[in-house]
């Protein structure tokens, strides 16, 4: 059996927010008791709308933000406190990519020098070895040495994201967190980067946490998928199966809302009501005000994520067995 590389146990994160200048500070539960694990070589996709807490989750997994509750374990060991030597050693093995490559790169430094930086920081190899490694990294993301001599401003969006990816791979990490890495790219360029990520993941045996709002991209790249709504996982399962047979009413609406070229869907589920607001979390199941199937119990009791079968977990009072009510109604 493959061991889990990343184990997340009941992590929560609360922010204090003031509404207006003189308003009373309120607590915003960005992430609320999240648990999951990612096996070695596996990609877990986290999908959700804005405010669902997916980025906060990514940051906590990397130790960039301490969870208020719960803990994260990486390769069997807890995440070391930020700034310690142990943390540095751990961080060389886990890297991240964000949505905006231009914001992640220094505009006044040739990109090759930026790819090299992690090698300098972690003191890996001799000078000649580092040069060779930069060349190898550029090649692995389908770029040439001449691209390496350019500044970020002289590269296209897709090329910049490749540079960020090459830099993230410099220290030969085991684990990569990608937060909306292709959302800012055009469709054709997005496909290039997605293909590259999948190739690299297979070749290097990377474990990935892939965060996106785009169902299509998530399905393409992930082996397992977790759907988040207002800080909680509402459904978790194998990627193909989850999108083919969504069980949670929210997942069903998400899948149905994804427009498909070639066919006009006639029975789209259009959710009514406002988008989720983490500062005003509804009681009980956070989704109940927008749910077509909600019953009285949903407004009172928070549904727990429970196993439906050996491959699927759902947090819904109405989805309890393989023959769920919501499935029939849909």
């Amino acid at each position, binding site marked *: 059996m493959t061991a889990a590389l990343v184990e997340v146990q009941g992590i929560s994160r609360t922010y204090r927010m003031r509404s207006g200048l003189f308003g009373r500070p309120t607590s915003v539960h960005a992430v609320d008791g999240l648990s999951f694990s990612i096996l070695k070589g596996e990609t877990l996709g986290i999908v959700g*709308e*804005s405010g669902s807490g997916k980025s906060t989750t990514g940051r906590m997994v990397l130790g960039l933000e301490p969870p208020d509750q719960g803990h994260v374990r990486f390769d069997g060991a807890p995440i070391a406190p930020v700034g310690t030597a142990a943390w540095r050693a751990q961080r060389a093995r886990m890297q991240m990519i964000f949505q905006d490559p231009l914001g992640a790169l220094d505009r006044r430094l040739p990109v090759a020098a930026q790819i090299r930086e992690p090698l300098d920081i972690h003191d890996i190899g001799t000078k000649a070895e580092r040069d060779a490694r930069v060349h190898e990294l550029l090649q692995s993301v389908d770029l040439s040495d001449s691209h390496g001599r350019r500044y970020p401003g002289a590269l*296209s969006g*897709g*090329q910049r994201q490749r540079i960020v990816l090459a830099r993230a791979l410099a220290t030969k990490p085991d684990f990569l967190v990608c937060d909306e890495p292709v959302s800012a790219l*055009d*469709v*054709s*360029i*997005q*496909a*290039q980067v*997605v*293909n590259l990520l*999948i190739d690299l993941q297979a070749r290097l045996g990377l474990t990935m946490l892939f965060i996106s*709002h785009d*169902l*299509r*991209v998530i*399905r*393409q790249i992930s082996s397992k998928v977790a759907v988040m709504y207002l800080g909680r996982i509402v459904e978790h399962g194998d990627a*193909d199966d989850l*999108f*083919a047979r969504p069980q949670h009413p929210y997942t069903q*609406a*998400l*899948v*149905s*809302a*994804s*427009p*498909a*070229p*070639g*066919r*006009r*869907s006639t029975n*789209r*589920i*259009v*959710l*009514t009501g*406002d*988008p989720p*607001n983490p500062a005003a979390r509804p009681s009980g199941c956070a989704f109940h005000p*927008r749910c077509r199937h909600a019953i009285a119990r949903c407004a009172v009791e928070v549904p727990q994520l429970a196993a439906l079968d050996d491959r699927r977990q759902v947090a819904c009072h109405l989805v309890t067995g393989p023959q769920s009510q919501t499935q029939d109604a849909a």
Partner: protein
Amino acid sequence: MAPLVSISGLKVAFDGTPVLHGIDLDIGKGEALGLVGESGSGKSVTWLAALGLLPVKAKVSGSVQLEGRELLGAPGTELDSVRGRRIAMIFQDPASALNPVLTIRRQLCESLALHRGLRGEAARVEALRLLDLVGIPDANRRLSAYPHEFSGGQVQRIMIAMALAGQPDLLIADEPTTALDATIQAQILDLLSAIRREFNMAMVLISHDLGVVAENCDRVCVMYAGRIVERAPATRLFDDPWHPYAQGLIGALPPLDGVRRKLQAIPGTVPDPRALPSGCAFAPRCMFAGDGCHAGVPPLAPLEDDRAVACLRPQRLPVELAAE
């Protein structure tokens, strides 16, 4: 039937760099037309130019006619009777299109006064009706709210209400749902199609999202580097695209069901408008390109009644396959 808006040979250049190379486009009354393409393809510029909304430094030539009336070069006063009144436009970022320090009522009533001459109580009643129409709950109380008190989806609804204030014949929706979450996007698209049906309003939907366009439009134009490269009925374009670029766009979209396959990425990047390749602008990225493709720009040629493609080697399915 005479088209509502007819664009022919529309060209735009910024600082001597051409970005639009002659667009020909007709929109019928009540029709929904989709414009798809990647950033820089000229989808938005086409309509900004048509409505005289580009900065002065832009050089615009060609012809844009609204029911036979020429809009290009028309005096400002004449354009003012068209913009917002006959043709309205909504944008991707609704929040920046509203004034943050004025109430929704002030802004809606301003549109109503400008386009319909409504004042006082009449304007208020009409504003209320519009907010109801676009599905803002508790419209009466919300009229006196400020833009920041609404969510992103609601602000887009208010923008749609303002666009409807002039009872336009044509609504240009420029990436209206790109900044919104998936479930809210579905709501807004639903609203737009309901309004279109109710008022028999024509719509141009500009989007980079093929799925959005496919599901909400009758006809689609695919744009690349300042030209229309394919024009077809929506259903047929997505079942059987002819232009290699249109095929590439559809192949690059990850499927949501069925077997996972490697995405067909289009190699290379969109050309810089200052250094367009000679001949077909897509040729350097095209797997079917031959010598002729680099020699001259292929014109948008009709191949069937309702379909046209600007390609020397359109990739048409054999007849028996296409019929399936």
